[in-house]
């Protein structure tokens, strides 16, 4: 019966995708993509994949739309089609169709959905489900797989977020002395941006002032309670970043940068990756393998090797949360201010 929910939601998702393509006003497309992520979250939740659903919820509702809106704010708003590019569009259509057909062909080789005899279900999943509590004291198997058994993968995922932030920052950041020269050289880019005036909305300011503490408290709970409930570093970090973005949107950049300045952004985003890799290196020096947390009981007081793994996972999650939080905030600041870091959405 829950399959019925899935089918309705998936067909609505398909409709959302088509609709987003059909709307010429890019703001409309961005907003329709919000619905896409809402419905995707429901599909994950109906399948019982709550950690994925949580990630989709936080990223889709918190930062995804905001990033796209701020990109449109600093670029253009209309989807322009040039008629004489018909050949190019035809070529792209063919390429997309071929790639889609190849992907569909590959899907037939995958095991059936929910197949009990597939390799993943016979070897891997059962091992994790049976041994997670005994080996790590973590009831939420997803967290123990993510942060311990598959620690390498998660470390490099954190690095991907880090690199994404550094890439956007390096591409967009304009130094103030250079921007003055650039403004005289290219007056066209200045003209497309509307004149900026300070807008004081008491309602939005008061609402965000009331909401931000609760959001941050909830985010800390998500990070710290990831061992027992869905959530963890990524989700908590995104919520923390979204609360900072909300402050920057409802006040102005001056207020936002007084909380977390540009220098601190760069420092903290590196610190998060450093915490993760540092825990791995400490294991190295204590005689274990890289990211083999059980040897940490030698330096952590009053723990056995099993509890040490549980504690080290929390440390790792804090590192992930730090990197993700500051990355989201920094990406928003870069995108909405066009790299100038002075004023934005």
């Amino acid at each position, binding site marked *: 019966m829950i399959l019925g929910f899935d089918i309705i939601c998936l067909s609505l998702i398909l409709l959302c995708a088509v609709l987003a393509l059909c709307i*010429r*006003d890019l703001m*409309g497309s961005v907003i*329709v993509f919000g619905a896409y992520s809402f419905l995707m979250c*429901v599909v994950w939740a109906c399948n019982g994949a*709550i950690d994925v659903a949580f990630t989709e*919820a936080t990223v889709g509702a918190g930062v995804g739309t905001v990033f796209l809106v701020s990109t449109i704010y600093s670029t253009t708003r209309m989807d322009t089609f040039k008629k004489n590019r018909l050949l190019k569009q035809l070529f792209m259509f063919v390429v997309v169709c071929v790639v889609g057909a190849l992907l569909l062909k590959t899907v037939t080789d995958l095991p059936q959905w929910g197949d009990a005899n597939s390799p993943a279900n016979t070897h891997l999943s059962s091992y994790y489900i049976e041994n997670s509590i005994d080996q790590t004291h973590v009831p939420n198997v997803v967290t123990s797989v993510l942060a311990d058994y598959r620690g390498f993968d998660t470390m490099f995922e954190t690095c991907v977020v880090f690199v994404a932030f550094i890439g956007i920052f390096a591409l967009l950041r304009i130094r103030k002395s250079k921007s003055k020269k650039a403004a005289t050289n290219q007056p066209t880019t200045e003209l497309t941006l509307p004149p900026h005036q300070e807008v004081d909305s008491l309602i939005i300011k008061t609402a965000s002032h009331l909401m931000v503490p609760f959001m941050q408290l909830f985010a800390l709970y998500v990070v710290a309670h990831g061992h027992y409930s869905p959530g963890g570093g990524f989700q908590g970090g995104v919520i923390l970043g979204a609360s900072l973005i909300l402050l920057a949107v409802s006040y102005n950049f001056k207020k936002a940068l007084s909380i977390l300045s540009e220098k601190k952004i760069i420092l903290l985003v590196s610190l998060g990756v450093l915490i993760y890799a540092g825990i791995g290196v400490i294991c190295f020096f204590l005689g274990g393998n890289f990211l083999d947390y059980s040897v940490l009981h030698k330096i952590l007081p009053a723990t056995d090797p099993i509890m040490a793994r549980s504690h080290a996972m929390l440390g790792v999650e804090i590192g992930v949360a730090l990197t993700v939080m500051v990355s989201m905030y920094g990406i928003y600041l870069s995108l909405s201010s066009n790299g100038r870091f002075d004023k934005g959405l």
Partner: protein
Amino acid sequence: MISFLYAAGLFLLVNLLLVFIRAVQGPTVIDRLLSINVIGTKCINLIVIAGLIFSRLDMFVDIAIGYGLLNYIAAVCTAKFYQHHKTLSPDSGASS
């Protein structure tokens, strides 16, 4: 109890379809924004209902709270966008 939950979920989904018509038709962006916000609210309810069906509400309620906290950021952001741009229709006037 379970059949009641299924019925409630289906009812919400039908409502969601009705709201979706506004997102498809919606002449202006604000109509679409409003309908998407309503869809978000319905999704929160659907997630809680899914949690009740799986009888693990303690797991699903976190997602619902997270959604509830974050759902309005996009609306605030879009409102700010229109405060700067002033016009509701795209500048070139050649809307679809």
